[in-house]
């Protein structure tokens, strides 16, 4: 089968999934129906309007109460959308949306490394997770099968061409926090033996978790990268994306082994601290010493979390 035929099948499979979703949503009622219709209609522009839907407004007001968790809200809503997320994934879903405050607010390329204890900053990411868990529920394969590429047939082709980004990193992070040993072993095998299956979502999933065994594996890969600047760049530019612990662990490795000598690592340190922009010419103007001091300062604040006062972010729209 040539690529064109394969892509055709992948697109048809995607259409099938979308139709299943649409039929499911058509049977729902009220706020949930409005929210999910918006979520699935036109994924990117819909986010601006989701916060204006009935459910979106109720979610925002629920989250403006101090100490409120997104999972409490969705536990109440779930009976209204039963079956939208598979039963075996529902608890992971609740854990993921609660864990959001440990991760960056924005997923975009222009992101700054901001996090917030205020869940209202994360309503866009909550919506993304609602969508991602649903998509995952529709696929008849385990998470391990999906990350190792052990899927065949039409689903296999869908995963090859249309499952952009693969299994979302939030889901991987929660599973790793639950010490899912099958997943741990699969990821370790990929890191140690079969790098070709290594993808960005795996790296992010590891740094977003609290699983030290996984940090260690990633650290070893970072040291073994040798001539692969691309791999080093991929790892280093994502270590500020997850938990504080992951950052500190991997930063320690970078400092101990003086990995800042590589330009990819120096550039990554520039992105964490916000000192570098997309134009690489900045790399020459800023010295290595400045970048290191910036990163060390970051580490100091991270180890003494309470010294930093987090500015309340006013979020006008839910666009990331």
């Amino acid at each position: 089968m040539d690529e064109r035929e394969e892509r055709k099948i992948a697109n048809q499979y995607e259409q099938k999934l979308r139709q299943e979703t649409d039929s499911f949503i058509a049977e729902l009622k009220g706020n949930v129906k409005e929210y999910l219709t918006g979520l699935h209609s036109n994924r990117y522009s819909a986010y601006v309007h989701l916060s204006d839907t009935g459910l979106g407004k109720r979610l925002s007001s629920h989250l403006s109460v101090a100490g409120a968790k997104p999972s409490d809200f969705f536990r109440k809503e779930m009976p209204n959308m039963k079956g939208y997320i598979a039963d075996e994934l529902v608890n992971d879903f609740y854990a993921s949306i609660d864990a959001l405050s440990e991760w960056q607010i924005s997923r975009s390329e222009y992101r700054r490394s901001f996090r917030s204890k205020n869940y209202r900053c994360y309503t866009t990411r909550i919506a993304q997770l609602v969508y991602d868990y649903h998509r995952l529920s529709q696929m008849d394969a385990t998470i391990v099968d999906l990350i190792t590429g052990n899927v065949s047939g039409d689903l296999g082709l869908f995963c090859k061409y249309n499952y952009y980004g693969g299994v979302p990193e939030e889901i991987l992070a929660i599973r790793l926090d639950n010490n899912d040993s099958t997943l741990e072993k699969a990821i370790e095998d990929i890191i140690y033996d079969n790098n070709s299956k290594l993808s960005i979502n795996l790296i992010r999933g590891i740094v977003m978790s609290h699983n030290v065994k996984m940090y260690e594996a990633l650290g070893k890969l970072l040291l073994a990268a040798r001539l692969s600047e691309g791999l080093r760049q991929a790892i280093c530019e994502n270590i500020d994306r997850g938990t504080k612990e992951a950052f500190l662990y991997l930063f320690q490795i970078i400092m101990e082994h003086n990995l800042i000598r590589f330009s990819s690592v120096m550039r990554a340190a520039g992105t964490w601290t916000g000192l570098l922009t997309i134009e690489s010419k900045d790399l020459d103007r800023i010295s290595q010493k400045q970048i290191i001091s910036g990163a060390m300062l970051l580490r100091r604040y991270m180890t003494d979390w309470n010294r930093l006062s987090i500015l309340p972010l006013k979020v006008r729209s839910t666009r990331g």
Partner: protein
Amino acid sequence: MIININMKQIGKKRQHIRPVPLEYKNSIKTIKDLIAETVSILLKQYQKKTDASQSGESFIPDAIYSEEELDALAEIGRISFGMMYNGKLPEEQNAIQTALQAFEDGLIRIFLNDEEIGEDTIAIRDIDLENPRLRQTESINLREGDTITFIRMTFLAGRMY
């Protein structure tokens, strides 16, 4: 002992790689010794060339090129006379450290008579994060007249995803 180092010769019609004999005075037991000695010897040669340029002995045979040599140099992009205008010499210990680091990073690979030495065979799983093994401590057995080749690699700078 005399060890031959394969060096690329420019200025010939076909680029030859020829062994150039260098004299190693100290004993070479490990890869680290080999790299340190080589850097030291080449630095001294560079020093001599610099001194020669600076003291006004400007008519070094290298500086007069034939038509053929000029063409070859034009091909690599720059015609230079082999004179050292910049008198600054790299400091020896720094140069040795840089070369050793380059070796550890896989930027330089070394071949002894067509067989690679100090090859990176350690599995990622077995890397010790506290105490990574340094390949430069591996011992080598150098004999008079052996040939060494240093190959410089390039980083793969593509996107991983």
